[in-house]
């Protein structure tokens, strides 16, 4: 049960607000007991890993840049990260920020005590980038399906990357924030829908896991039941032998041998029926074990942008070309019945006409051989 709630926590991990909701605090606290803390305040947030835990970065060379206290002087030293990505120790934070918001001793930005988070990565640049990307993907969650073509989607990705870059390197902050605002206002409904889609997916994944677990349990139960039956069978066989020995007047050794043979026959019949089932179960198990190594990826209908540039021609309802005359007339309907599509012929002609328009000519003969080192001599010479 605990395991499952963890999975849920990870899947919703993206939506957990950074920096201080009571529930996430307790969560972090309970799962990171190895961190010794001198402060009475509980610091939440930070970067969570797949199981919803925040693993803290910890080094023997830690030193608080504010009070210069280090791990030698204070073995319980714990450095936390401020909203402006400066480190300081818990006692400095308690000292400076307990009485309310105060300026950062390093950069003078006004900070609050609860906005300090545990440090996960050694490099604070990474810490910052992860936090920013997490924030951005929460809202910039459009998918390929939301765009008419690949070009538009690529433009969108470019813009997102641009905004992220600006935020990370603090370029043009006010304008970038304005861009985010504008995007949020424009796409509120879509963002909401994509969040729901994401949640629905998480839900489906959970359900799938549940059914798999149930199946496993069922198989285990089945196996137990079979063992039980087999045991009873053996017990019964033994009793039968004793009964027979009691009542019949035949040779004792013969009676025993006969009933043994019977029992053997019964058990082999049973085991052959169950081995197939068992071996299947074993195979499935080994498959499941492998599935953790390489994740399955969702299906992408087309992996290139062949059709993204269909705006180069327009197919009309009909053409008066002599080549397709027979097909167009088709008095007996035999071409229609066979599924011949004259539209395909027209489309092919148009496509071939516009196919190379966008391509730059190859620069030199060396690039030709690079492009196709297996170039066909017979075709080239023909």
């Amino acid at each position, binding site marked *: 049960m605990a395991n499952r709630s963890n999975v849920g926590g990870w899947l919703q991990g993206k939506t957990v607000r950074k920096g201080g909701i009571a529930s996430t605090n307790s969560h972090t606290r309970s799962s990171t007991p190895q961190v010794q803390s001198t402060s009475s305040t509980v610091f939440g947030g930070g970067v969570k890993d797949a199981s919803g835990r925040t693993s803290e970065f910890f080094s023997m060379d830690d030193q608080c840049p504010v009070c210069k206290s280090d791990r030698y002087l204070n073995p319980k030293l714990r450095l936390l990260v401020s909203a402006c990505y400066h480190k300081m120790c818990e006692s400095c934070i308690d000292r400076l920020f307990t009485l309310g918001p105060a300026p950062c001793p390093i950069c003078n930005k006004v900070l609050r005590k609860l906005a300090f988070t545990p440090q996960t990565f050694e490099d604070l640049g990474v810490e910052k980038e992860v936090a920013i990307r997490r924030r951005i993907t929460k809202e910039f969650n459009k998918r390929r399906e939301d765009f008419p073509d690949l070009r538009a989607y690529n433009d969108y990705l470019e813009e997102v990357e641009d905004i992220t870059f600006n935020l990370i390197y603090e370029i043009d902050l006010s304008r970038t924030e304005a861009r985010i605002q504008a995007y949020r206002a424009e796409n509120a409904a879509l963002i909401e829908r994509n969040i729901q889609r994401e949640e629905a997916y998480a839900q489906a994944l959970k359900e799938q896991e549940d059914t798999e677990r149930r199946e496993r349990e069922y198989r285990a139960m089945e196996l137990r039941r079979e063992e039980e039956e087999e045991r009873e069978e053996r017990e019964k066989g033994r009793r039968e032998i004793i009964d027979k020995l009691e009542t019949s007047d035949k040779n004792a050794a013969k009676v025993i041998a006969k009933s043994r043979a019977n029992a053997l026959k019964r058990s082999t019949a049973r085991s052959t029926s169950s081995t197939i089932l068992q071996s299947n179960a074993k195979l499935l198990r080994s*498959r499941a074990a492998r599935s953790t190594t390489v994740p399955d990826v969702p*299906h992408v209908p087309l992996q290139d942008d062949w059709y993204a540039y269909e705006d180069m021609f327009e197919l009309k309802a009909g053409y008066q070309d002599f080549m397709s005359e027979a097909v167009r007339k088709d008095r007996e309907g035999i071409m229609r*019945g*066979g*599924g011949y599509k*004259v539209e*395909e012929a027209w489309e092919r002609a148009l496509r071939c006409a516009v196919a190379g328009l966008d391509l730059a000519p190859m620069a030199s003969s060396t690039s030709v051989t690079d492009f196709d080192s*297996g170039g*066909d*001599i017979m075709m080239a010479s023909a």
Partner: protein
Amino acid sequence: MDAVEKANTERQRRWAKDSKVGEGAYAVVYRGREVATGRKVAIKKIKVGQFKDGLDMSAIREVKYLRELRHQNVIELLDVFSSKTNLNLVLEFLDSDLEMIIKDRSLVFLPADIKSWMAMTFRGLEFCHRNWVLHRDLKPNNLLIASDGQLKIADFGLARDFADPGYKMTCQVITRWYRPPELLFGSRYYSSAVDVWSVGTIFAELMLRIPYLPGESDMDQLKTIFRALGTPTEEDWPGHTKLPDYVPVGQFPKTPLRDLFTAASADTLNLLSKCLVYEPRKRITAREALFHPYFTALPYPTHPSKLPQCTTQFSGHPLEEVDGNVEMNSTGPGVKANNSRLKRKLSSPNDDTKTRSIARRLDFTKHTPSS
């Protein structure tokens, strides 16, 4: 030595032939490798000298189309060179095919595995169709599996470009069990829908683990199809009674696919039924199929590297005696002949080979070259 000859020898030196892995009437297949990198390849040597009317048609087709198609899910033709009087095709080396995997009883397929194979098949087929190439011989043993699990469409010996108005095409193509009804009715004007039907029957075969529509003759094939899917009415398929070889084969009622495919999801059956629509113009196209909800629904398609792989190892037992045509057909990468004991047991093998070789013969002589 002129320039062409020089280029040819240079080309020939890039590849080294190793052991022979299969032989047919028209070609011998060798295992080989690239000299520089040691990469495994299959070299298909086509015997030119034996033909009265020049080079074998299927070799021409194979070279013609494979030179133009390069895709993850289509077998790659690496090189072509001539040695003495022979033509050599250097192909990607692939260890197994889908038929071997279907027949390997020690493997269990998950629905996600089938989805993954179908997605790769449709992807490869979509690529052929967008380049205006009909494959015309899709069946499990022409879908080869690379060692990384990628599925590759192979054997373009019957391929042809389409959408060229005014040319008749032959209807004696595609192995019978995978042949669509319009070809069985002798249609000479058809479209990419014929390949989609084949993929539909392969889809069903992946689920059933036995061929879905195993007809014993062309006539029986129609009967088998109609028994499974119901006899089409004029409404289902306008114009089919006008097709050249149309013969009424009896009335069979429509039965829901659900009765046979009890464990399949609704999405699966929806896609399958769309692949097996009688009216070819209404049949789903490869491109539309890729957008079908079946592929986007859970579970995700299995990652190719985790798909069940054939457990049968490469072994050097003697080659099976087979008709040259059949051999030629199945030696895509040339490995097939080794696994002769995995060859499909036909209910009437002689009959099948006969019709197949007829298909070939018609192809050589009567077919007007499309170029």
